């Protein structure tokens, strides 16, 4: 690997000046001339038939310009699993029945937000209440109310994954244990609420939508399906986004309703959710019941694993079906499991639907796996770090017929964390304990349930006469730093500087498709597309340089530090800027264009590459109150070649923060479908005083399939936190937990139960 000029060097955010000066424009900040404000009327009932809706009073109010209900919408159905039309189960507004508290039934557009909000009180809806079902184990029963009338037993989706002979594996095991867990939901809670601004062009019938989205393309598809329009007549632009964390992949009611209202009024319409709507009516993590059975030899070698789960999908499909698939996959990570069987069921319930959230499918499975593994280690008398080392994946590992692992720094990461625990945590008090867990995460998914005919990511590079570059790509920066990574990759590939590149991101009209920011795919997939596009430009520049040098075709040329030169004789070359001028002249005056794309091929069925790591958490348990303080965290992390170390560290820190919250204090208790804590006052999120410092070690590897050897960074680090905390508490008190969110009351109860058993 030659020394890079830009890759691997700490690089500040290309959007930095805009973000620190309040000039970065989010959808939240946008207005257009003649704009109207929209609000949604939502069902107060979890399950009801709509008998009638009377909007006449609302329509009469001064300042109200339109009131729509389901019958005023084009009637298209949409969803993210477009390969299976029956799973495209969402409508712009409920037409026949409402399926969760918050399901929108009407929308208002008015000259001010206050008038629009007030007008909702004047819409009269007559409902016929229906029995509702809230718990997946109830939803699958034969006598359960049906959330979707055509879906038997409320079974939305199933998944089976299998390899090896599991029954044989258990027969050959010396030790078998079965555990059940409940994983409860959390909310992504991005700081920018869901909001969209739609503008309909009365002249050509085209629609432009600005939205706080993770995937302009997915939104474009959803709008096209819901509004029964051609995709190409819809332009989705993603401005800066104030966080997504998985909850902004779907087409949500703000975008589709703003669009319909704009089409009806002929004026731009903006819909902004308030924070209560954000908590109650936007996507959250899928809660689930998990049953895990593992068989090991007495030396700790894993022989077989059986994993069953039933998930609480909520009222619609969205990406929840993907969660089912990924959870079943992550239950095997990051270990070599010779035989495995998984059966998952996703049910409909009368609640806001559940979907992807940061560490999509991994957090749930890894909570169960890592907690169980510690218990097994304890029973077998094996050190928890040792049992993991023994079974850890290694480079090139293949789960038969399922996924391939390319580069893998798991073993060195275990060594590193173990070494640091021994050096650093020598002074544990009797109330302190350590939990050690492993993690792994995908670099985007190979599956195509969205049913796109496009390459999974595309990019275009245009080089101008003065050597400046315009880079067009739909990759979505939602805070993770994709814009900066893309510019860095393009600069490195062309041998130029970051200051030479202007990025045009995330506009479906001007950029080739990228599937969006989910399952940590941007660096791998979008990065590869950007590199591909830049390399096609590089080829053209090299050809011109070679011609000028008059050199034999076998001699390689390189680009670096704004020069194009003979690799073996670097002094023989030209300035990049001069070659650009020549290339344009030789191309009939056209700017130099390079187009690139990336779709993973021959990489198994799940993901083209995986990041890995180890984590240790030191906690202090207050045995009288059950309060668990997180004192210190050590992480060793393999993301291949880190593109931007600053960004990588940022991702690790953010992931740990989310993971700690999801392990200790964030939950969404409901009562008959009503979320009980829909505000930051009641939904508890770690603040700065709760966060420990995080010691991070990179374990660089090289992923040949990744741009400059890079893989995704740190989304994996969300998952190990909850089980590490549970394992640490177990090590201190012996108390075990069958669920996450270890609030003090729950911990105290478990400690007392354990003490009670001992007495």
């Amino acid at each position, binding site marked *: 690997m030659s020394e890079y000029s830009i890759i691997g060097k700490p690089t500040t955010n290309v959007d930095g000046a805009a973000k620190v000066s309040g000039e970065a424009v989010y959808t939240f900040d946008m207005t257009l001339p003649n704009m109207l404000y929209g609000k949604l009327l939502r069902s107060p009932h979890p399950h009801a038939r709509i008998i009638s809706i009377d909007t006449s009073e609302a329509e009469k109010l001064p300042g109200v310009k339109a009131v729509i209900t389901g019958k005023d919408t084009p009637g298209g159905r949409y969803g993210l699993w477009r390969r299976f039309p029956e799973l495209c189960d969402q409508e712009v507004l409920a037409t026949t029945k409402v399926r969760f508290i918050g399901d929108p039934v009407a929308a208002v557009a008015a000259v001010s937000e206050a008038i629009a909000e007030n007008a909702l009180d004047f819409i009269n809806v007559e409902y016929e209440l229906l029995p509702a079902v809230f718990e997946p184990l109830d939803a699958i029963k034969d006598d359960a109310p049906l959330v979707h009338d055509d879906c038997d037993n409320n079974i939305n989706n199933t998944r089976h994954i299998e390899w090896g002979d599991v029954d044989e594996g258990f027969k050959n095991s010396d030790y078998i244990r079965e555990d059940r867990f409940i994983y409860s939901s959390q909310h992504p809670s991005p700081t920018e609420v869901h909001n969209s601004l739609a503008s309909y062009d009365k002249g050509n019938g085209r629609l432009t939508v600005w939205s706080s989205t993770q995937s302009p393309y997915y939104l474009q598809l959803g709008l096209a399906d819901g509004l029964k329009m051609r995709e190409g007549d819809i332009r989705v632009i993603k401005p800066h986004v104030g966080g997504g964390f998985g909850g902004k992949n779907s087409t949500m009611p703000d975008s589709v309703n703003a669009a319909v209202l704009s089409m009806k009024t002929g004026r731009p319409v903006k819909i902004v959710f308030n924070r*209560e709507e954000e908590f109650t009516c936007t996507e959250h993590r899928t809660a689930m019941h998990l049953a895990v059975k593992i068989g090991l030899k007495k030396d700790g070698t894993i022989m077989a694993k059986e994993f069953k789960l039933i998930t609480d999908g909520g009222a619609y499909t969205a990406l929840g079906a993907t969660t089912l698939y990924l959870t079943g996959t992550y239950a095997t990570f990051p270990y070599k499991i010779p035989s495995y069987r998984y059966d998952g069921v996703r049910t409909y319930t009368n609640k806001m639907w559940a979907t992807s959230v940061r560490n999509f499918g991994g957090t749930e499975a890894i909570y169960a796996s890592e907690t169980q593994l510690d218990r097994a280690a304890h029973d077998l008398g094996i050190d928890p770090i040792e049992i993991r080392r023994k079974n850890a994946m290694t480079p090139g590992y293949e789960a038969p017929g399922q996924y391939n692992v390319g580069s893998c720094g798991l073993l060195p990461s275990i060594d590193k964390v173990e070494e640091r625990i021994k050096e650093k945590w020598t002074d544990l008090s009797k109330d302190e304990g350590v939990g050690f867990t492993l993690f792994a995460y995908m670099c985007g998914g190979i599956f195509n349930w969205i049913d796109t005919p496009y390459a999974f990511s595309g990019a275009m590079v245009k080089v101008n006469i003065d050597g400046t570059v315009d880079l067009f790509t739909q990759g979505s920066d939602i805070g993770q730093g994709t814009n900066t990574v893309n510019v860095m990759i393009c600069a490195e590939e062309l041998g130029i500087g970051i200051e030479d590149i202007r990025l045009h991101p995330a506009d479906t009209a001007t950029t080739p498709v990228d599937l969006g920011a989910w399952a940590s795919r941007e660096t791998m997939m979008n990065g590869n597309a950007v590199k591909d596009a830049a390399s096609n430009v590089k080829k053209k520049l090299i050809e011109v340089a070679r011609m000028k040098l008059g050199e034999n075709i076998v001699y390689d040329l390189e680009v670096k530090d704004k020069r194009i030169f003979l690799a073996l004789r670097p002094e023989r070359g030209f300035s990049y800027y001069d070659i650009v001028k020549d290339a344009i002249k030789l191309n009939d005056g056209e700017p130099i264009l390079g187009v690139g794309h990336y779709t993973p091929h021959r990489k198994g069925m799940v993901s083209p590459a995986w990041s890995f790591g180890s984590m240790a958490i030191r906690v202090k348990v207050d045995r009288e109150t059950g309060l668990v303080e997180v004192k210190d965290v050590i992480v060793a992390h393999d993301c291949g070649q880190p593109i931007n170390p600053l960004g990588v560290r940022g991702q690790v820190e953010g992931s740990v923060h989310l993971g700690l919250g999801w392990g200790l204090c964030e939950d969404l208790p409901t009562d008959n479908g009503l979320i009980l804590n829909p505000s930051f006052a009641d939904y508890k999120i770690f*603040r700065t005083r709760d966060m420990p410092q995080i010691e991070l070690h990179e374990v660089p590897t090289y992923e040949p399939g990744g741009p400059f050897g890079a893989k995704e960074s740190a989304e994996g680090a969300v998952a190990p936190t909850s089980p590490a905390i549970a394992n640490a508490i177990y090590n201190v008190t012996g108390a075990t937990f069958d669920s996450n969110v270890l609030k003090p009351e729950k911990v105290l109860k478990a400690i007392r139960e354990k003490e009670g058993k001992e007495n």
Partner: protein
Amino acid sequence: MKNIIFDFEYLAPKTLEEALTLLSQYDEEECKVIAGGQSLLILMRQRLITPEYLIDIKGISDLDYIKFDEKEGLKIGALTTHRAIEKSPVIQKEFSVLSEMEQNLSNVETRNWGTIGGDIAHADPCGDPAVVLIALNAKIKMTGSSGERTVDAEDFTLDYFETALHHDELLTEIQVPTLPPNTGVKFTKFSQIVGDLGLASVAMLITLDENKETCSDVRIALGGVAIAPMRAKKAEDMLKGKKISDALLAEAGQVASEETSPTTDVQASEEYRRDLIKVLVKRVGNEALARAKKA
């Protein structure tokens, strides 16, 4: 986001007299007083409180003061901000428990604008200042068109968001008596998130006799475990006149927890809140005792 979408008349009196005159002009149902508004505005944005007349007293500078005198004790004007109390050198020296409590109250932004009078008048059963003031044996002065009166802090908060204030009165001053010699005071609230609203809280004042052996006076105030901040009088009786030990404090904690009437809500169960009181009384008592010994 939620804004205040109903209209109201805004009145901004410059003096206490003006404010009292306005108060007496409007009915209780139609008007509301705003000081810092850190609690009130949220409720107005949620349309839970919808006054037709809003009387903004934040501009009455005469009510913003901190005065201390060895004999008279501490007098805090109702419109003194939490931040001023937190940072006041005289309070840090003489009544450190107050500035410690303020340091963990909400966040700096709230404390810079919110007032102690506004907080106590709002009467949130979890409200920290009220709990500490009860332990400090404070008095609350109220002024109305018919004159002034004071009540003990423990008699000021009556119920959820309900106080002893008559409609035509304003809370104008908080009076904290000088601490007797050999007195220590400590406040702790329990929350999972540091500095968050407490699930339960305890403030204890312990005065020791001149030999620093036995407890001559004790006040135990509890927050978040009843309809209003309360005193745990039975627990106090157990400690008065005795030599305070760990075991005694644990017993007192048990008794105090039995005096409470907490509720179960989405954050915690009533049993757990009682458990917390047991633990907190013990821990806070030990710290107050240590302070009393040092005093």
